[in-house]
């Protein structure tokens, strides 16, 4: 039952189903029979968080443990937040409605930099001091994970610890320690010291950061026996790894509201701008038989009408064809749609193409990322113009009359000619349409080019590279718009200011904590949503802190510089990243991992080669 004080408020807000729980698949436990309570916080709205596979995995994993109860917590939208503050309703778990400040552990997944201020807002709504140093013995442990944990330094002052890498094993090791600490009555400090002994756990308060006069990091020094470098955790065998047999099925529609199975982890491609392509290495596949079984179980338990085969690049699974052969009969019988979100069509056998076409009918998108072949070589995006055309031809022949091409601007080595090449490519797709005898009759074609601003990220070869300035971005956007001649080509782009803030935070250091806090105190919250983002707030906070945005976003890092995240080991050697960055400037590509090992270092996490020798 929903407590009366919350029940009386919910009809005053938009989408009250976000705040009331009770969905199919949500887990109820008896408070008296659990000794460890975990609040899994997603610092964004319900419909965003409920789409996230990582949260589903850890939710089920923790709840599968006897005596542990994991609940879901999302950021309230502004209407409900105002009511919570006015009515003094503290942030609660959706399963029990209990205030999360009474829990043992409060965990945040950090999926993107623009959620940082939301984290602070949620802590305050929970009644928990935002700074780790201000928390007493009775406060829950505030932990973080997810991709942004690969450089959590701007958030280091707010978290007690971070989990680096994959959580399936690490989370349980950690929760066992928490349980033991409760039993033994360990102090918070002692618990953190012991947590730092668990591989994959980074306790920022056990590291002292000193700076040079020019603002770069001088040294990161471990204290109290903490390891000099913290290595991220991985799960070696995906097929044997824990996977949920049920999901919480939301009432109100989530962004991705479907069953999901993760077909592989890591990526063999090595696109030099792509953080996910590096930090999730090494490449590992899940067996088709296991995937088929997990998909069947999930669909039966949830009743979902769609199952997605997710990964960074699903077509890179070496046995996608047998998997599809296995899944097609039962999904067709049960009228379940198979979604294949990340496909590259270049390596398809005719049979696989046939299988994929049976299930695929979504809109046509393609991500060449750069307009010219030279720049695509520089960023190691191994897509050729011919591949774009082949995809377009197939789609147009099938009756499709629009195509979306994704690009980035501000990539290292980019020139205005590369920008214009985006339009040339789009124009060629338009021309191709009109030259096809079998084109859909009586209809025009629409090619949309969507251009994002490049954000250099830690643990990628471009971690050393400057981001374009706002002026450069805006000039390029203007140039692009002025150069479009055809009504058949539409250009979409975003304001560059968000990308600049992302760049500042992505490669930031601990001095940014006061900036993040100041932005939040000035009203920053849910900043991933355009209507809640204010660039001025960030500029004001940076100047008040005496820090320069250009220092973080637009500065080239020397290869010898100590980077704020150098003590966090994601399996990649710095030598490899430097090698790849140099190759970018020579427009030299690197083979994908399956063709030839590039020596990134991540195979050490496996304790052997990523691929068996042919």
């Amino acid at each position, binding site marked *: *039952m*929903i407590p009366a004080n919350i029940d*009386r*408020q*919910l*009809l005053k807000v938009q989408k*009250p*189903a976000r705040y*009331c*729980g*009770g*969905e*199919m698949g949500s887990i109820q436990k008896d408070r008296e029979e659990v000794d460890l309570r975990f609040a899994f916080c997603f610092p964004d709205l319900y419909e965003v968080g409920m789409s996230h596979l990582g949260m589903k995995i850890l939710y089920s994993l923790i709840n599968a443990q006897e005596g542990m109860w994991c609940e879901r917590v999302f950021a309230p939208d502004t209407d409900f937040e105002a009511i919570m503050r006015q009515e003094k309703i503290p942030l609660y778990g959706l399963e029990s409605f209990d205030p999360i400040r009474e829990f043992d552990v409060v965990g945040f997944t950090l999926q993107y930099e623009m959620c940082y201020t939301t984290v602070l807002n949620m802590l305050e709504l929970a009644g928990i001091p935002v700074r780790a140093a201000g928390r007493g013995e009775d406060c829950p442990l505030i932990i973080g994970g997810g991709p942004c944990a690969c450089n959590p330094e701007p958030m280091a002052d707010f978290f007690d610890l971070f989990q680096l890498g994959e959580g399936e094993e690490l989370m349980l090791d950690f929760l066992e320690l928490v349980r033991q600490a409760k039993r033994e009555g360990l102090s918070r400090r002692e618990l953190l010291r012991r947590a730092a002994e668990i591989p994959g756990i980074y306790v920022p308060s056990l590291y002292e950061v000193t700076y040079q006069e020019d603002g770069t990091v001088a040294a990161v020094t471990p204290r109290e026996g903490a390891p000099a470098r913290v290595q991220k955790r991985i799960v070696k065998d995906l097929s044997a790894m824990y996977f949920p047999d049920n999901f919480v*099925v939301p*009432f*109100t*529609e989530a962004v991705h509201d479907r069953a999901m199975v993760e077909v592989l982890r890591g990526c063999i491609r090595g696109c030099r701008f792509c953080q996910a392509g590096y930090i999730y290495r090494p490449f590992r596949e899940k067996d088709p038989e296991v995937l088929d079984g997990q998909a069947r179980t999930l*669909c*039966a*338990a*949830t*009743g*979902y*009408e769609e199952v997605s085969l997710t990964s960074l690049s699903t077509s890179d699974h070496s046995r996608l064809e047998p998997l599809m052969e296995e899944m097609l009969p039962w999904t067709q019988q*049960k*009228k379940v749609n198979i979604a294949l979100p990340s496909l590259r069509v270049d390596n398809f056998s005719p049979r696989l193409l046939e299988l994929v076409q049976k299930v695929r009918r979504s809109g046509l998108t393609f991500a060449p990322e750069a307009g010219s072949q030279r720049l695509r070589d520089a960023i190691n995006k191994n897509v050729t113009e011919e591949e774009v055309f082949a995809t377009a031809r197939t789609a147009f022949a099938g009756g499709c009359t629009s195509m979306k091409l994704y690009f980035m601007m501000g990539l290292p080595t980019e020139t205005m000619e590369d920008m214009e090449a985006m339009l040339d490519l789009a124009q060629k797709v338009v021309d191709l349409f009109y030259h096809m005898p079998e084109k859909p009759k009586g209809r025009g074609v629409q090619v949309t080019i969507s251009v994002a601003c490049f954000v250099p990220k830690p643990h990628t070869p471009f971690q050393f590279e400057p981001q374009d300035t706002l002026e450069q971005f805006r000039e390029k956007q203007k140039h692009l718009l002025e150069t479009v001649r055809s009504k058949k080509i539409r250009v979409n782009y975003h304001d560059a200011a968000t990308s600049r803030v992302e760049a500042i935070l992505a490669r930031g250091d601990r001095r940014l904590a006061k900036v993040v806090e100041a932005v939040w105190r000035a009203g920053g919250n849910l900043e991933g949503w355009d209507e809640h983002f204010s660039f001025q707030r960030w500029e004001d906070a940076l100047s008040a802190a005496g820090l320069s945005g250009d220092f973080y976003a637009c500065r080239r890092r020397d290869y010898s510089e100590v980077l704020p995240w150098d003590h966090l080991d994601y399996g990649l050697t710095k030598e490899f990243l430097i090698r790849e960055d140099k190759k970018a400037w020579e427009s030299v590509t690197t083979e994908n991992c399956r063709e030839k090992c590039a020596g990134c270092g991540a195979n050490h996490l496996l304790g052997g080669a990523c691929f068996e020798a042919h």
Partner: protein
Amino acid sequence: MRLIRVFFAKKDRAKYISHLDLTRCMTRAFARTDIPAWFTEGFNPHVYMTFALPIPLGFEGLRESFDFKLREDDFPLDRVGEQLNAALPPDIRVLEAAAAVMKPEAIRWADYRITLHEPAGGETLAADWERLLARPAIPVEKKTKHKTQEVDLRPLVTQLGCQAEGESLTLDLRLPGGGAMNLNPNLLLGALWADRGGEAEYTQVVRTAILTGELAPFA
């Protein structure tokens, strides 16, 4: 093929589900059972389901209904309820599944229990309500998809009960329901708020029954 009418209650947290969310929830519940429900044909096949009188977000319903088609004539109806209940969240409960007796057009009335809460007290609310009801006409703007028209609510309201107790006022009302003429109680509550100059602190609405022209329960 048999047309089956499923009667269900939608209470507590389930009142926060919109009609669209409820249909999706039911569709997925069917997929978690082995009830041989008939699917629509075409590009996007799904369980065929129709709701005679959709219930708005925010309302509880004691005996709501929807229809679906059973492909197997001998599939026992008690198993429909059992299996759906196992596949539905706790706040949505199937009460009965039976062959549809009436056509949806038979619906003429719906009964509501409306509880208003106000620290000033139920008696104050009762006085406000009675003052509204005593007016010769209660004109409101009723918006439909195509137009806005003025409707007088007064002749549409039948009061079955009115009970003030402590901080609350409980009204039992019979309002027109169904395809021909339907009055959403929120429209009436809106008129009350306008008349007394403010909303009650909070309000609960429960649809207690759906009735035919002869005041028989819809079956």
